[in-house]
């Protein structure tokens, strides 16, 4: 009887291994919280302070409070507006692409298939790689003179990453390749959670395949798809590493690259902090719109 209780009650099971709640708090929770405060919360507040000053991390000049000047300057800068629109377009292309490819793959995988487990694992490999590694080898793939893409498609010497019209899409394609598996994984979870009896009811109700898909499958998977889209939009907005590694083409400059240059090449610490906060607010706004939809979808 004692052994039955120990296996059933998680608290006593942890206790039998010597992990009391206090130990868990001391060993895991406190270090984590301390780490977060030191490396996340503190810099966040510290940079908020910078955003109202003319501080330059590279100079010893006196730091003056400038009020909202940095914000006004950043918002008046046409280059920043251009990178904003570029980023927005990049987010739309990349997230749409990931959604279409990822959901499509999930639909294909959500049926009896041989080697389904192996296939799913293989398909998830891209998102397990480091973005810099992905960026670097896609750079090789895109290489105009000996890249495999031009060779395979027989396109001649298309300079994917230095062409002002193509560079952004080239980066977006890489991002789609890397992150579609994430959308696929969440969609697959959503699809397999639709109860089988609803499909049976629909087939009894004489619904065709398309009608069933649009009236049953899609609405029921919608909440989890929205979560995938929220995550990917937030991430795409912040895209830095892939784009930074792959291209220096100004037409494909994303907002985070701009921010990096302002902060660490031009050492405009004050204005770049202001820009960082503007980006944060924009991402929050966009996410908020999705969350509203999500709550609506979840109500049903």
């Amino acid at each position: 009887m004692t052994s039955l209780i120990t296996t059933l009650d998680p608290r006593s099971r942890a206790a039998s291994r010597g992990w009391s709640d206090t130990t868990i708090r001391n060993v895991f929770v406190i270090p984590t919280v301390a780490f977060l405060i030191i490396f996340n919360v503190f810099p966040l507040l510290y940079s908020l302070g910078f955003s109202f000053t003319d501080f330059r991390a590279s100079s010893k000049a006196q730091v003056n409070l400038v009020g909202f000047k940095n914000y006004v300057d950043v918002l008046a800068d046409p280059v920043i507006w251009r990178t904003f629109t570029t980023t927005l377009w990049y987010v739309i292309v990349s997230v749409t692409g990931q959604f279409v490819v990822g959901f499509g793959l999930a639909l294909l995988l959500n049926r009896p298939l041989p080697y389904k487990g192996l296939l799913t694992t293989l398909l998830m490999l891209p998102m397990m790689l480091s973005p810099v590694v992905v960026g670097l080898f896609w750079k090789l793939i895109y290489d105009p003179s000996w890249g495999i893409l031009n060779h395979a498609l027989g396109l001649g010497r298309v300079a994917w990453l230095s062409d002002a019209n193509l560079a952004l899409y080239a980066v977006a394609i890489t991002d789609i390749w890397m992150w579609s598996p994430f959308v696929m994984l969440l969609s697959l979870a959503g699809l397999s959670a639709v109860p089988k009896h609803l499909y049976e009811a629909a087939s009894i109700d004489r619904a065709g395949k398309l009608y069933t898909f649009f009236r049953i499958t899609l609405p029921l998977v919608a909440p989890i798809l929205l979560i995938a889209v929220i995550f990917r939009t937030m991430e795409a907005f912040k895209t830095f590493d892939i784009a930074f590694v792959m291209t220096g083409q100004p037409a494909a400059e994303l907002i985070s690259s701009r921010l990096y240059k302002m902060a660490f090449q031009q050492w405009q610490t004050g204005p770049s902090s202001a820009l960082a906060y503007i980006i944060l607010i924009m991402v929050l706004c966009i996410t908020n719109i999705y969350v509203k939809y999500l709550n609506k979808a979840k109500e049903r």
Partner: protein
Amino acid sequence: MAEIELRHVNKHFGPLQVIRDVSLTVKDREFVVFLGPSGCGKTTTLRAIAGLEDIDSGDILIDGKPVQTLRAAERDVAFVFQNYALYPHLTVYENMAFPLRAVRMNRAEIDTTVKSVAGSLGINHLLKRRPSALSGGDMQRVAIGRSLVRRPKGILLDEPIGSLDAKLRETMRVELKRLHVENGSTSIYVTHDQVEAMALADRIVVMHEGILQQLGSPADVYEYPANMFVAQFVGSPVMNMKTADMRETAGKVQVSLDGTDVAFDFPSELAGKLSAGKAQKDQLMLGVRPEGVLISRDAQDGYVELVAGIIEPLGSHDIIDLKVGDGILRARTKSAYVSAPGQKVWARIDPAQAHFFDATSGISLGVRF
């Protein structure tokens, strides 16, 4: 409306045969109930008729046309699921309109149909709600409404009221009966509850281990069970089933139970009837429902003295355990007819309510008085 016919239907799940050579015809406008314990193949049979389950061999005919190769959508039968299977993201109205919208009926027609069906089910006030805001009974009404709107050839119901509480089950049972009378649709209803089966069915199909045990009216199945399984499955409390030993002494025929000395008188024709039913003398089982065991407080001619055991007072009547050897014989009496356990009573078995079976095959020997 339509006639549904099964011919030698067989179905396996892996090595397990769940439907064994089932043949039956459900007549137009008939209400047939498949009754049996869980795992007897009744739901699988129903799902096979609907087209949700493929069969291995045999034919399923609707209005004389073989449909076993058709998809569920092409068979024109509606199905009411045990768990209702309402679309959780659609309102009640949209749920009921679903089968009509799926075939692109025009809006006005959908609207009138849905509203009139909702009216007959008394759920007009719920049309704007979502299934999650409904009670179990209302969900079931909506599920039934969804099956009725399209006026299908047949309605198949899989334990539709099985997950409701006892009180609501009774209300819904009456409602289902009324709907069937109003709509006259050919219906097949699956349940493991024999009271539901008796109350609703024009004919009952008793199934066990994939085999059709008996097909007949509720009265037939109750009064003339074809075998020991049906005898004990239908009726509550369960029919008494005892090994029986027939003795003829001085022109009097007596049957003793469970190898004890307790012997009940039977008409002298019993011997002849048993041999006509090709009964083997040592393979005899006697079944008698509690109401077939007659009780008297005083000694009477032809009654055997027994001792009362546990008494279950059920309000309208009592069920009393009578000790017969090591076993018991359950009898039904008026309330409080026997006052306390241990009391002496006199009992007799009503020959008209006695059933004789072959112990090995379990089949009824067809003895009737």
